[in-house]
């Protein structure tokens, strides 16, 4: 069997071009493997090889979505690979979204087998796990070796059109397609094991998660916005300068509550972002870009809204667990309700 030709997509960081400050770079096609491609080539040996690498800045991809995708598709067409690998992106949110977006596009438009990998809580995972195979990785690049060991064999199977087993066997994120496989223990023994764990309040994994959706019905429209008290809430990480409560830059464990009574404008001297998942330059230059206090004050003065609520709530939505986010919101929504706030504007990044 001849060596399979692989094209890999990575970002500016994994190409060792730079961090956020270089996230604006346009896609570039290089010969041979770059960064993680070396590990993939080592894992594949004579079976497959990264022949070319596409490098693209995360900001460029996400801010020029159509253009970036078109440019990259042309590059893929010019190479004509047997397989397209994107990432792995671990818990890097915009990189994960970029990997999954472009891999899906390559698969759908060009019919080429594709594979990406990322941490299960990467937003790209939820958005695309039903469309392409996404290998479940650890939450940081320290898990590269583990990621390659799972992605390399699955990639070969995909490229060769072989039968793909159940998610638990192959290491991809459950994609809503139930597949049978033969476990090591019989079902009754698995049930007794699971019961013992459940009785001991230890962690266990159900084999069939019940289909439940956390649906939130939209509230009715605000009757009279000119009389309404409106609060600002953000996951964009805006905090008073110095981040007094030390909200983490990723995987936040807490949220902040800060008074903006008498504040008409957030400035570079008084506020900043604690968020570690996007280029903070513009948010730090003018934090109103993420938490629009200035515009709200204008609307307040013009009588377009009743009042801007005196406090805002903020956290960092960067790899933060859904369970944590839910817990934060459950707490501060009670406070907002107690303060008779009529509506909330939620901003992200």
């Amino acid at each position, binding site marked *: 069997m001849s060596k399979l030709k692989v094209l890999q997509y990575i970002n500016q960081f994994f190409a060792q071009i730079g961090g956020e400050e270089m996230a604006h770079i346009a896609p570039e096609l290089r010969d041979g493997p770059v960064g993680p491609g070396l590990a993939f080539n080592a894992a594949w040996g004579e079976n497959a090889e990264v022949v070319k690498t596409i490098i693209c800045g995360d900001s460029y991809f996400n801010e020029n979505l159509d253009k970036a995708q078109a440019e990259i598709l042309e590059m893929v067409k010019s190479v004509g690979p047997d397989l397209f690998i994107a990432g792995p992106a671990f818990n890097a949110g915009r990189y994960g979204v970029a990997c999954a977006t472009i891999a899906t596009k390559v698969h759908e438009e060009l019919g080429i087998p594709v594979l990406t990998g990322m941490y299960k809580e990467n937003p790209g995972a939820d958005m695309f796990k039903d469309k392409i195979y996404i290998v479940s990785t650890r939450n940081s690049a320290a898990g590269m070796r583990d990621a390659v060991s799972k992605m390399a064999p699955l990639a070969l199977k995909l490229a060769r059109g072989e039968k793909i087993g*159940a*998610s*638990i*066997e192959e290491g991809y994120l*459950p994609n*809503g*397609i*139930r*597949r*049978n*496989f*033969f*476990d*090591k*223990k*019989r*079902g*009754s*023994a*698995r*049930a*007794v094991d*699971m*019961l*013992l764990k*459940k*009785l001991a309040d230890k962690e*266990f994994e*159900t*084999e*069939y*998660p*019940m*289909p*439940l959706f956390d649906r939130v019905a939209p509230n009715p429209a605000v009757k009279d916005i000119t009389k309404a008290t409106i609060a600002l809430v953000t996951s964009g990480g805006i905090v008073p300068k110095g981040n007094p409560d030390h909200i983490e830059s990723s995987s936040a464990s807490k949220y902040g509550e800060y008074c903006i009574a008498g504040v008409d404008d957030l400035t570079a001297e008084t506020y900043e972002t604690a968020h570690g998942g996007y280029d903070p330059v513009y948010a730090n230059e003018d934090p109103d870009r993420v938490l629009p206090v200035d515009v709200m004050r204008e609307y307040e003065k013009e009588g377009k809204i009743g009042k801007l609520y005196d406090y805002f709530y903020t956290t960092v939505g960067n790899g933060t667990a859904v369970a944590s986010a839910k817990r934060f919101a459950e707490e501060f929504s009670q406070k907002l309700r107690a303060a008779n706030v009529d509506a909330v504007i939620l901003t992200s990044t």
Partner: protein
Amino acid sequence: MKLELGHIDIHDIQFAAESAVKDGVLYVNAEAVKALVLEEENLKGCQLEIARPGESVRITPVKDVIQPRCKVEGPGGVFPGFVSKVDTVGSGKTHSLRGCAVVTAGKIVGFQEGIIDMTGPGADYTPFSKTVNLVMVCEPVDGLKQHDYEAAVRIAGLKVAAYLGELGKDVTPDEVQVFETKTLGESFTEYPGLPRVAYVQMLQSQGLLHDTYVYGVDAKKIIPTLIYPTEGMDGAILSGNCVSACDKNTTYHHQNNPVVADLYAQHGKTLNFVGMVITNENVYLADKERSSNWASKLCEMLSLDGVVVSEEGFGNPDTDLIMNCKKIEGKGIKTVLITDEYAGQDGKSQSLADADALATAVVSGGNANEVIVLPKLDKVIGMLDYVDVIAGGHDGSLREDGTIEAEIQVITGATNELGFNCMSAR
């Protein structure tokens, strides 16, 4: 209650002039067995065949599978309410012919019997490709109604299994297992530090040939009750089912209930296995409400910390499963459920007909809708007339080249919900 279960390993079955168990071989006098079958006035013919693991043999339509056993010491006899009187069984000594089974076959309902392949890909899905099987293909008298046919084949199969089991009565077992469940009072003092656990077994009782029997009583007429786990080992619970082959519990499954075995294996070590609740899966809402109320009430009366709940069948009984889960969890007792899935051939559909957030711990026997192609095998025991209409088959399932394309639903025991197999789904 204490039972010594002696296993006599059987490596082969052979027809012979005299029935006997000798050196691991079950010798069968075919005429004696046929005569026993034909005692049933509703049966006019019986073809006997032997199917061994690895042989290019397909058995269909399979109705039930039964393990030959006999009572050596203690009250009662095997299959109480049918073959034996209704003495309470499950204590003393019982001998079991391990490695062999009686398979009953015949086109009773046609679309609700199964397939056992002794080799090939289909063999991986059924436990009965690993047993040496004595297959009885039973022919009904003319004009016999299906439910009378089912009853005749059921009783003939039990009688043959009891007859063969009796041949091991004086044979020294290769292995003896001892199972003991103390009285309720003793169970509190025996292992005071261990969590109190019971097994809730849901019995198929939707009716219209979806029936299970307990000491001869149709399970849809029972109110959930307590039973010693060893009682089942003597055939107190048995199958009268003509329901989808993959997830009905054959009599063999009841005799060898793996949940019972695996809870006993942990008894006194990590948990205190205090007993077993049997409940049913009737179709009327009032019956479902009553039975789940009673099942959860019995769990409460036993002062349990946790239970394993096993389902039988799918669809309608999914609602019983979820009701049991909600109500037992509602008593502060933790549950693990064993079920199987009907996620569609593409695996994309919701697997169960019902769901609840309290069902946090579920073991799956696999997706019954997954499609398999079974190769043509050299010999068919029974008949292929019904392959196209069998549950899990479709028009054209039986292809011209003799291969069968169908869902694994057609394979006897494939997605068993007692957790008999290793298969699961993700």
